[in-house]
């Protein structure tokens, strides 16, 4: 009986503690979400009301900003370009890096280690400003201001890490499995296709997710390489729009929302994979 007040005090203390923790977490949550909310909210106003009306929800919702941005602001084209770049770069990275990683892991040929460590070294050495010679070379190859040039550059950015990640996966394929396939008459390409690729599915998922993120959000090479509006991806289009008009804020906010929505939606759907991939990667690294 005498223990009861002590128990209550203990419980109160625990409630208090978890209350403080939740207040802290909630505050940070709000600072994370509010700017995004403010972006969407501002995108539904007009240039006249956006500067003076600071109500949480605007009185009238102008959804037509999105239509104007999509058509007159060329964001329909930018969106399509971003989609094309993302799809082709991701497919390119997965195909090219899985072939190379498979060879580094399971095949034998002279110079194998040399080439493998070349990719590893590239990941270790930071090379800020490498975009300067890259742009010079792209123009020399006549690949500047072309879709294929930008796609190849972005594939190159993703290659070393993907090769490393996939090689560690391929190293774990049981030799029995490979031998059995070989005895059944499977070629090297067949083993890559039917055994290695399915085996590395989790790693490929991580590569697809993070490459898509980095291509969709890439800005600097898009700025330096692509001058035609018809070739620009979204991030470049947003900056082009922000720089070339006397800024119409609701339209700008609508264009930001267009640029951010796909990535946020995809993130919400596959967030478990992202966090799992990141967590395991971090602990290994």
């Amino acid at each position: 009986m005498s223990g009861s007040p002590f128990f209550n005090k203990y419980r109160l203390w625990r409630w208090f503690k978890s209350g403080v923790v939740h207040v802290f977490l909630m505050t940070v949550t709000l600072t994370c979400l509010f700017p995004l909310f403010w972006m969407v909210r501002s995108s539904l106003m007009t240039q006249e009301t956006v500067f003076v009306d600071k109500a949480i929800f605007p009185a009238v919702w102008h959804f037509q900003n999105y239509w104007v941005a999509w058509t007159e602001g060329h964001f329909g084209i930018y969106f399509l370009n971003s989609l094309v770049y993302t799809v082709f770069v991701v497919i390119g990275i997965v195909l090219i890096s899985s072939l190379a990683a498979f060879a580094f892991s399971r095949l034998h040929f002279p110079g194998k280690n040399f080439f493998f460590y070349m990719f590893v070294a590239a990941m270790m050495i930071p090379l800020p400003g490498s975009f300067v010679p890259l742009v010079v070379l792209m123009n020399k190859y006549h690949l500047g201001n072309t879709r294929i040039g930008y796609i190849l550059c972005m594939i190159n950015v993703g290659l070393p890490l993907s090769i490393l990640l996939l090689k560690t996966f391929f190293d774990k394929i049981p030799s029995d499995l490979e031998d059995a396939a070989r005895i059944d008459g499977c070629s090297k390409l067949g083993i890559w296709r039917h055994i290695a690729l399915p085996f590395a599915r989790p790693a490929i998922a991580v590569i697809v997710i993070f490459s898509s993120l980095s291509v969709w959000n890439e800005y600097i090479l898009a700025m330096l390489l692509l001058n035609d509006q018809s070739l620009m991806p979204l991030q470049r289009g947003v900056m082009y729009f922000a720089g070339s008009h006397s800024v119409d804020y609701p339209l700008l906010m609508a264009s930001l929302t267009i640029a951010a929505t796909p990535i946020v939606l995809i993130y919400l759907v596959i967030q478990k994979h992202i966090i799992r991939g990141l967590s395991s990667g971090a602990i290994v690294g």
Partner: protein
Amino acid sequence: MSSAQSKTLSGHLLKDYLSSFSFILPAVAIFVGFYIIPFYEIFNLSLHDWNGISAGKTFVGLENFQELMGDVIWWRSMWNATYITLIALTFQNILAFALALACNRAIHFKGFYRLVFFLPPVLSEIVVGIIWRWILNSGVQGNENIGLLNYLLNAVGLHDLIHNWLSDPNTALTCIAVVHSWKGFGWGFIILLAGLQTIDRRLYEAAQVDGANSWSTFWNVTIPMMLPVIMVVVVLTILGSMQSFVLILSMVGQGLVYHTEVPVTRILSAMTVTQRYGYACAQGVMFGLILVMVSFIIKKLSDRMKQA
């Protein structure tokens, strides 16, 4: 007979090697064209004077580097990047660690918090920068502050704090550093939380049996066990923050004022504004060497800490 056999054998082997090599051929071709050659070119160009257009490049030896050593704006930009990095190392990482500790327990809405904290990192620097530029806008229309922050400061009566956040040299860089931390703390949070979850529960139980309070448990169990993960976060923060620049382009643009310049925006300016490609490459080489040195020093420090 035996020589003919060995001939076909080596022919087979050669064919086998070639077919194996063809697996890495696409990767190597792209890598040579888009990494190795630019890598060579950045060193080569750094020894030349070139405007990016004319056919002839003038060899100038180490002159670009000599000029760079005395370039006040360059070293100022280096300090600016260091300042952003220091704020990211302290403010951002301590916040990330505190949040990870708060979430590393049986707590309601853990999944929700984790979902939200990693939202800023998946957004692009362009989107983040322009949203914050809009919130920090210092314009005035009539008697109203256009930007939300100044409007709120006015509304709650803190008139003295109303400010040209992004055009005042005293606050612009700090604003950028805070937004950079806002965008980046989610990475540290996820990595540190994953690290915390690998610590063996029994260590905490043993500390409890020994009568350690939560403070000393934190210092004697959590911190030592987390050191390797913390070092990973520190290295990633330094390399990422020193080289970040897109956020600066989207928040304040490539202005003619130098208080928000960082090394990479200097490289970009040398290339696109003054069109001194050689000088741009010299800056890239110098900055790369500094970063390699910094990560080497951190590696040595963390090795020493592990031994202690």
